[in-house]
C-alpha cells in the first residue's frame, strides 16, 4: 500500500513541525531503511521492531497471518503518530505494519522516531506501540506446528458477547 502522511524531511528553515508517515503493507518490512529517518538536528533515533515469536502462551507457533482493515488502519496509524508527535515533541515518526503471512522472526511492525533529544524518542515510540495494540484494526491468526490455527485475542480486551 502507499505511504500516507507527510514528507519525512522537513523543508529547510522550518525544523519544528513533526512529519509522520504511516503504512500498512503486504511487503516485508525493511527496518534498516528507517535508520535514515530525521535530520541533522535529530540527535536520537529509536527504532522498535516487533517480530513473530516461535511461541505464545507457552504454545509453539509455526507462523502468523495478519489481516487488516487496511484503509482504516492506515488512517488510524497516522492519527496515532500525530498524537505521539504532539505529546512528545518528536520531529519525525514513521511506522509500518505488515499484513499477510509472516514466518518466525519476520517483522510485523516497525516504528522509527527521530528527535533532537532521547526522552522524546522513547516516549513517542512507546506511545505508538501501545496505541497500535489497543486501536489498530489488525488481527492475527496463529498457525501451529500441526497445521491448526486460531485467532489471537488480545488479553486486555473483553471477548465480544
Amino acid at each position, binding site marked *: 500500500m502507499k505511504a500516507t502522511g507527510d514528507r519525512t524531511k522537513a523543508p529547510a528553515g522550518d525544523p519544528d513541525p513533526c512529519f509522520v508517515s504511516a503504512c500498512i503493507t503486504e511487503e516485508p518490512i525493511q527496518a534498516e531503511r528507517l535508520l535514515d529517518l530525521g535530520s541533522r538536528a535529530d540527535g536520537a533515533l529509536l527504532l522498535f521492531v516487533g517480530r513473530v515469536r516461535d511461541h505464545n502462551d507457552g504454545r509453539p507457533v509455526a507462523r502468523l497471518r495478519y489481516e487488516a*482493515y487496511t484503509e482504516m488502519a492506515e488512517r488510524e496509524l497516522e492519527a496515532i503518530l500525530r498524537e505521539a508527535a504532539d505529546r512528545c515533541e518528536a520531529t519525525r515518526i514513521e511506522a509500518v505494519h505488515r499484513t499477510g503471512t509472516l514466518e518466525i522472526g519476520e517483522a510485523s511492525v516497525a516504528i522509527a522516531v527521530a528527535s533532537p533529544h532521547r526522552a522524546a524518542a522513547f516516549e513517542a515510540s512507546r506511545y505508538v506501540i501501545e496505541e497500535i495494540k489497543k486501536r489498530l484494526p489488525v488481527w492475527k491468526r496463529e498457525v501451529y506446528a500441526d497445521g491448526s490455527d486460531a485467532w489471537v485475542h488480545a488479553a486486555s480486551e473483553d471477548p465480544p458477547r
Partner: protein
Amino acid sequence: MRLSVLLFAHYRELVPSPSVEIEVRTGATVREAIARLRAMPGWEDLPEEPTVAVNREYSQPDRELHAGDELALIPPVAGG
C-alpha cells in the same frame, strides 16, 4: 437508505458473508443497523454491541448513519 457493512477476522466466521449491503430507515443509528443485521437468517451470532467504525473511524452505537456509509464491525484488535 442503503449501507455497506464489512466484517473482519473472527466476525467473518460467524456469518455467511464477509460483506453485505443492508437497507435501514433514514436516520437509523449504528445500534439499529446492528439489530437489523442480527435479524437476518444466519447472522444471529454477531455480538449485540460490537465495536464499530463508520467510514473508517471508530464510532458510538448512537451515531446516526447516512446513505452510502461504510459500517465496519471490528473484533478485538490484535496488531503489533
